[in-house]
């Protein structure tokens, strides 16, 4: 078994003591990801170098809203520099999990680490490292695009000297340079999503968390958003954690994906290996798509379950879609 250490991020070299909870040294046979290996799908082994701490590592993450156990024991690690997809049906707990990682929801100390920083104890340090785009369209429609980005530059302490330049660059990177001084109220859904990307980029985060960045967008706008995400990632080397309902997107753009259902990670690996594993199990020649894997992992459960995609989830999705017009 050969283990290629993850190349340390060349851009932001912040020395952080390796998190004691991450699997720093690997022995053959252990999985680098802490995913619960349920079912027959093998979990992928991703080497974790002792030098660069994982972008995200969470262990036994749980969060309940009253009696709803939205996240029910999630273990996963996102390696520095990868594009990691979090997939799952409505109500699977993806948004809740992301909100725990962003310090929006309180988590017990020791469960979540972002680049080695504890999300419970070092909130501000964690927030400085992440750029977050929530599921709803969150740009302020009564400001211009530039003002929206400049606000986030200010809130992340970008100094006045470099602010204008950074804001302009971030807008340019998402292809909004020409629309920058228009009111966001006049933007299309795809433009708003790209603007939000610019808002997240302006603070040079090491980890970009995108909650359904392409929800409600037409196919061309979807491709546009993804092209910008991949270009930015290639240029900056940032880690991307993304949730999506679109299996084709996950297959095409994600290095690894985790399939979530009912608050748990049911399978975690590269899309290729997940598909290969399903083909091996089925034993037929037809190449399964990631969607087949998804159905295989959660599909049977979906029809029977009452919880998945409850009214609340659908309503929220609709609301986002309707704001998109």
């Amino acid at each position, binding site marked *: 078994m050969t283990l290629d250490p993850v190349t340390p991020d060349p851009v932001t070299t912040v020395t952080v003591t390796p998190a004691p909870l991450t699997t720093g040294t690997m022995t053959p046979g252990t999985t680098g990801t802490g995913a619960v290996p349920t079912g027959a799908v093998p979990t992928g082994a*991703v080497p974790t170098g002792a030098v660069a701490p994982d972008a995200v590592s969470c262990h036994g993450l749980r969060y309940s809203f009253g009696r709803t156990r939205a996240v029910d024991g999630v273990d996963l690690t996102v390696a520095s520099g990868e594009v990691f997809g979090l997939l799952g049906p409505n109500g699977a707990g993806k948004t809740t999990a992301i909100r725990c990682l962003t310090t929006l929801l309180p988590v017990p100390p020791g469960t979540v680490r972002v680049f080695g920083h504890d999300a419970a104890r070092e909130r501000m340090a964690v927030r400085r490292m992440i750029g*977050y*785009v929530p599921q*709803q369209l969150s740009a302020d429609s009564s400001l211009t695009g530039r*003002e929206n980005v400049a606000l986030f530059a200010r809130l992340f302490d970008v100094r006045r000297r470099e602010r204008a330049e*950074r804001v302009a660059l971030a807008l340019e990177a998402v292809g909004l340079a020409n629309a920058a001084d228009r009111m966001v109220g006049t933007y299309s859904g795809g433009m708003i999503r790209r603007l939000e990307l610019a808002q997240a980029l302006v603070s040079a985060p090491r980890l970009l968390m995108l909650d359904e960045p392409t929800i409600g967008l037409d196919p061309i706008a979807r491709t546009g958003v993804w092209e910008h995400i991949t270009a930015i990632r290639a240029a*900056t080397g940032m880690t991307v954690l993304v949730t999506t309902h679109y299996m084709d997107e996950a297959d095409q753009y994600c290095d690894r994906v985790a399939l979530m259902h009912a608050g748990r990670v049911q399978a975690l690996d590269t899309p290729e290996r997940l598909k290969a594993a399903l083909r091996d199990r089925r034993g037929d020649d037809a190449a399964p798509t990631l969607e087949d894997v998804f159905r295989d992992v959660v599909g049977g459960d979906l029809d029977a379950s009452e919880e998945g995609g409850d009214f609340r989830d659908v309503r929220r999705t609709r609301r986002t879609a309707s704001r998109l017009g």
Partner: protein
Amino acid sequence: MSVAPAGRPPASAESAAALGLAPLLTTPRARPGWLVLPARVGAMCLVELQKLRHDRTELYTRAVQPALWLLIFGETFTRIRAIPTGGVPYLDYLAPGIIAQSAMFIAIFYGIMIIWERDSGVLTKLLVTPTPRAALVTGKAFAAGVKSLMQAAVVLVLATLLGVSLTWNPLRLLGVAAAVLLASAFFSCLSMSIAGIVLTRDRLMGVGQAITMPLFFGSNALYPVDVMPDWLRVVSAVNPLSYQVDALRGLLLGTPSHLLLDFLVLLAAAAAGITAASCLLGRLAR
């Protein structure tokens, strides 16, 4: 079994340069702790000013109500001379009260904006910036203050046009601005706290409507405390609006007032409001 490395080819400085993103690669340095609060307050106030610049209709429509108060109520009661004002024409006496009232109305419905921001995801994103909750609330409180200040300026001009002789002493006007800012910081935090409790816009509207009139009538904005029944005096004594009006009268008209006490109460009220709203903001984040 061989394990593939995670991630696609790592980024290089050249690829960043190719996209022209180089200046976007360095994470900004954190400000020293004591500068965070003023920086955030500045950022929030600026956003409020930008919004006012894009859309001034609110400024105009909101001027209607105070104009009516001054024109109808003020002119009428000036004639009736029913209210003992200590020798000041009633319209003059009323003007500071209406400035305070209209500023309060703006602040007390500021929570609606917070709820809108929560529903639209704007608040969520603000909460993920390196901004402590207290700094965020203080920023919002002063942003509401900026709006109130604009409103106060409009009413001040209106009153002058109606012939009220108010001071133009810049120092006194600065004091007026401070009183308006502090009071609207309190009232907007009250509103944000209620928003944190009731969580929906409709309920907040209801609560807001229910408390504005008692706050207004239970203050010295329309009549002096001396003419109030005892129970109303108690309300007035614990009502920050009364202290604001007292300060405004003292500063604008030069009538006898208790400026030190007024400002101390307003400061304490603002601090208490910010504390309460910061504690309750977490409920909106969930």
